[in-house]
């Protein structure tokens, strides 16, 4: 179901059009997870998807990645691109293969493309250096901390040079300090690679720190409640008035999203 973008909007890397999804529960009743989602991610844009737990954020990401099917609607990519060559995905958990050393983990995508060992190892080594893990290429994932694993996972995803990076609460399980470091690392990498990022979180602070644009989803069924453009200069100072006012705006949108469901 990957077709080229028909919209004549400014160059978009990814467009989700009227995507709906209903899950069948064990009792046989349908649970609607997503309701007619329209979402476009511009080329080089950093979009954060935020919403309460269980609102279908992960489902939407999985549909985009082709790990799940939508009931209606379609996902399309910019001309000449498709799922296979445009995307990379960073999960919250199980982001690395535990039986591979770090270097082999990062080189996995290149190995699948048939790149020769010296070439892919050189590329992987460079990427490990970029994420600050230059000294750990021989380590197994279980020998690393959670933050280091997510660094390696980012390197693994970047190895295939994706146009769009999908991230599902990638820093959700990390402590505050590590999370801040990784946020900065991701922003730096995003700025140098010029890729698009679609980033899922339920952390409002994180959303405002990272995003060009924040898309707020409502409680189940997930619907887009509001889109908030964050045009603050980077690096962003979290103690300034514009930052806190954006924070408030997102929080209000999330509350209204939750309320609108309760009212119906």
């Amino acid at each position: 179901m990957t077709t080229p973008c028909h919209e004549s909007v400014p160059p978009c890397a990814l467009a989700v059009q009227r995507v709906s999804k209903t899950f069948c529960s064990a009792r046989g009743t349908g649970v609607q997870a997503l309701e007619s989602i329209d979402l476009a991610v511009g080329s080089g844009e950093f979009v954060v998807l935020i919403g309460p737990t269980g609102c279908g954020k992960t489902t939407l990401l999985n549909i985009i990645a082709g790990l799940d099917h939508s009931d209606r609607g379609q996902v399309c990519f910019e001309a000449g691109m498709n799922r296979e060559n445009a995307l990379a995905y960073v999960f919250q958990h199980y982001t690395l293969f535990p039986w591979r050393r770090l270097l082999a983990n990062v080189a996995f995508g290149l190995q699948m493309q048939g790149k020769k060992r010296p070439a892919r190892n050189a590329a992987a080594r460079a990427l490990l250096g970029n994420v600050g893990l230059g000294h750990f290429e021989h380590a197994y994932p279980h020998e690393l901390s959670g933050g280091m694993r997510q660094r390696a996972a980012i390197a693994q995803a970047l190895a295939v040079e994706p146009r769009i990076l999908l991230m599902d609460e990638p820093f959700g399980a990390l402590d505050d300090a590590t999370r801040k470091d990784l946020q900065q690392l991701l922003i730096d990498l995003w700025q140098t690679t010029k890729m698009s990022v679609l980033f899922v979180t339920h952390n409002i602070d994180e959303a405002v720190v990272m995003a060009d644009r924040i898309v707020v989803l409502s409680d189940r069924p997930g619907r887009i409640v509001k889109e908030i453009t964050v045009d603050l200069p980077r690096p962003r100072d979290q103690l300034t008035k514009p930052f806190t006012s954006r924070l408030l705006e997102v929080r209000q949108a999330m509350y209204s999203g939750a309320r609108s469901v309760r009212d119906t």
Partner: protein
Amino acid sequence: MRDPTRNPSAGDRSTLLGWTVVPAVLLAAWYVGAAWIDRPWLYPSPARVAEQLLHPLRDHFGLGSLAGNTLVSLVRVVLGFAVAVVFGVVLGLLLGCVRTLRGWFEPCVEILRPLCPIAWLPFAIAVFKLETVPQVFGVAHSGTILDHVQLGMIFILFWGGFFPIFTCTLDGVCGVRRNYISLARLLGAGRLQRFVHVYLPASLPMILTGFRQGIGTCWFVIIAAEMLPGSDSGIGYLLMYAADLCAMDVVIASMIIIGVIGALLNFAMRAAMRTFLRWHGKEI
């Protein structure tokens, strides 16, 4: 010199006891018991058994030595186990990956699995007679140890080793986390690549667990099979023959050898797992 920083834990101390004091007490009890009963042809003293174990190359009843017969049993087990490995792993991987095949074969597997491998003995003799491995290749008598390796034995050992290996491999493949599959797919791995680079390494710990159980079962089965009709050698055969002649010292020496070899096989498999799977048991 004792390292002051290293405080031997309770585990270390109990292992030490397990290797020294406990066997010594059991041995002493055996010694005293045998002397007290004083019927050495039924209850030989440890000294007489040890005397047999210290002369492993001595011929018994014209059947060969303890060492020679042990070797025959081991060669049989290794060959039978190898056949079980090939079939167990290949079928386990195949059925694990292809749902349709699993549906077709699962009922038959469930009926054959609980069947004791020894129950195949009459069938094995009917099919393979007493044909040996060299005879298959047209050599009537090769003069090597393989002359004692009958196809029927390998067939029975195959059933002993096959199910643990097959079942563990199947469970291993079915238990691979969806996330690893998704991750590989998103990084561009095709069907075959996912099989080689995800299914196989991810299920390797289970496959090796299957090997460990399988070789244990094979060792169990060969001893029993050698005691039954159709056998001409092997440590199990020697044990039974010696029992018929009331040579209990040879019987007990054989028992000790069987136990020690079984433990060594298990030990070797565990060491192999630790070496090959540094990451195992450390799921992230």
